[in-house]
């Protein structure tokens, strides 16, 4: 009993403890829930990875990794170290209220970013993971935007933009809209795609605005039209057809 109380006290004093992180297995998890800003966690990360939980918009399906293609594909779970054949959601994926973000940190900089649903199994490969739990909404948005802006258009900035499109805060979509107007063409195009992934009618509305905006670069407007035409939302297609033929 005495040992247990001592352990709890130590955990409170140091702010660290063991914890379960989504579906993560085979990892050395260190808990530091006193930090709520992922940016600060990156600066002080003690492990190879930091992980946090982020609330997502209603109706979000749990993203995970898949094996196989098309009708033969099946959800198998992700790995922190390995690339998978495919990643994403299907109409059968369970709904989730939070996603878990894993960011690999090397020399104080984010080198990789993975986003999975809470139910998605993740093979840690023995990695050390600093778990900071739930994060502050504004701080997480700031951090995601900074990650998206800071990279050389690899998969990481797309992951950051994708995470922004899932973000429960309404401000996230506005930030994506701003990024879609950036002079950096690739960042802007990826932001347009992220907007197309926004749930509900927000994405459709923003894509229509982007397409109509004479001030936006041609490629951004083209991308907006393309994603409208290829949207799963029947209203988006109808609205575009109406606008073009009115």
């Amino acid at each position, binding site marked *: 009993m005495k040992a247990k109380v001592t352990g709890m006290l130590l955990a409170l004093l140091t702010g660290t403890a063991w914890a379960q992180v989504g579906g993560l297995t085979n990892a050395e998890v260190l808990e530091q829930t006193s930090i709520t800003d992922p940016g600060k966690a990156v600066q002080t990360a003690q492990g190879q990875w930091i992980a946090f939980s982020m609330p997502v918009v209603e109706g979000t399906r749990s993203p995970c990794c898949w094996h196989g293609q098309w009708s033969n594909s099946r959800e198998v779970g992700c790995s922190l170290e390995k690339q998978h054949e495919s990643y994403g959601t299907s109409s059968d994926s369970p709904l989730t209220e939070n996603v878990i973000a894993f960011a690999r940190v090397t020399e104080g900089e984010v080198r990789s970013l993975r986003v999975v649903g809470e139910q998605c199994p993740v093979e840690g490969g023995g990695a050390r993971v600093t778990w900071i739990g739930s994060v502050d909404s504004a701080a997480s948005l700031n951090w995601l935007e900074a990650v998206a802006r800071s990279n050389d258009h690899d998969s990481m900035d797309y992951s950051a933009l994708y995470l922004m499109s899932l973000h429960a805060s309404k401000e996230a979509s506005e930030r994506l809209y701003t990024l879609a107007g950036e002079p950096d063409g690739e960042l802007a195009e990826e932001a347009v795609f992220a907007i197309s992934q926004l749930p509900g009618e927000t994405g459709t509305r923003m894509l229509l605005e982007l397409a109509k905006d004479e001030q936006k670069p041609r490629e951004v407007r083209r991308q907006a*039209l393309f994603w409208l035409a290829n949207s799963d939302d029947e209203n988006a297609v109808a609205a575009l057809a109406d606008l073009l033929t009115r």
Partner: protein
Amino acid sequence: MKMKHILKKIVLATLLASTVVMAQTPYDEGQKALREQNWMEAAEQFKQAIKADEDQADAAMDWRAYAFYKAGRSKEAERQLRRLERKYPESSWVKEAQALRIEHQDPEKSIEQVAGNGSGMDEELRLFALAQLMDRDPERALPLVLDLVRNSNSEHVRQDAIFVLAISDAPEARQALADLARDSNDPEVQINAIHILGTMDATDELQSLYATLQDREARIAVIEALSIAGESTMLKQVLANETDPELRKAAIYGIAMEDNAESASLLESIYDSSTNTEEKRAILGALTMMDGATTLALKILRTETDPQLQREAIQVLGIMDATEELGELYASLTDRDSREAILEAMSISDDSDGLYKILQTEQDAELRSVAIQGLGINGEEKAADYLVAMYPGASREEKSAVIQSMMIMEDTEGLLNLLKQESDPELKREMLQMLTIMDSEESDQYLFEMLEKNG
């Protein structure tokens, strides 16, 4: 280097011709004087140009030296070149100057420079010098050229050195090429040398080479070279005796390049006796290189039983622009696969009239769709009007084909007109997808204007 040098002069000469009326600067006046072969006047004008325009001073120096050489004043030319090298050592004109010097200096001096490489000449310049020397003193120049062929680290220089051998009239150069073709350690040099022997009609050397070479790629190169030289007897021997499919294929193409009744007859007999699909396919491909092989392609189509080869024979007719024959075939062949292949062949041969004609009578929706897509691929101006006009009465499948064809033709306006008429949400979606997939600035502009007008 020589070509570059000559090209530069051609370009300058062309520029000269177009700026005669406008010539104002001393540099322009110098070029005008060169064109008029007024060498000393040119030298004087370039002297003024050197003083007047620092940006063009290096070029003017080179041209002044050229003018001096042409006027027979080599020493003044040489002095001018030295000044250029001293004052503008980094200028691109320095290399031109060195080439100019080599072109006009004593061959003995060039040989010494190239052999010793003591004057800082790079390989490209050495080769330029050697090209000059091959005509004057081939006995001494040849070993130096061969040294570059064998030992240069630059693929470009090695191949150019072979070319220097090829343009020489010296018998030693021809023998050197034959030696390289026979036993060069560098496969690319060897194959290039073999091909060059073909352009020199060196059939005796090529025939003896074929008998001695073991390497398949080199033997294929010999067959190609024999074909370039128009030596069909040996090609026939290859076909009579060789079993290696790749060698036979090369010989088949060589025979087809002859393009006469005899070669067509030979290919026909090989096709008839062959049981090898790949060889038959090679013969069909070779027929596309011949002008008068339509009859043979039709005969193969009639007698061939393999459906895939039949289809390829139809494609060959398309490549041959055998539009009349394809039209007749469509009427006589009733199986769908053949008809589809004929429609595709009509598209290959840009036979829109044939496709319109078929659309008037064909009832099969799938074949009609193939014909519609063919019209889109051909991209005739009137095709868009035709497709828009047929759209309202078209089947669902045909409508999809029309939409795809309009996309292929990048007809944004036409697609938007169809979008206005259409009420089926799926077809509307297809149209929007096609409209937004077109990577055309004109199309984008049109869409943006519509959005701005209606938004």
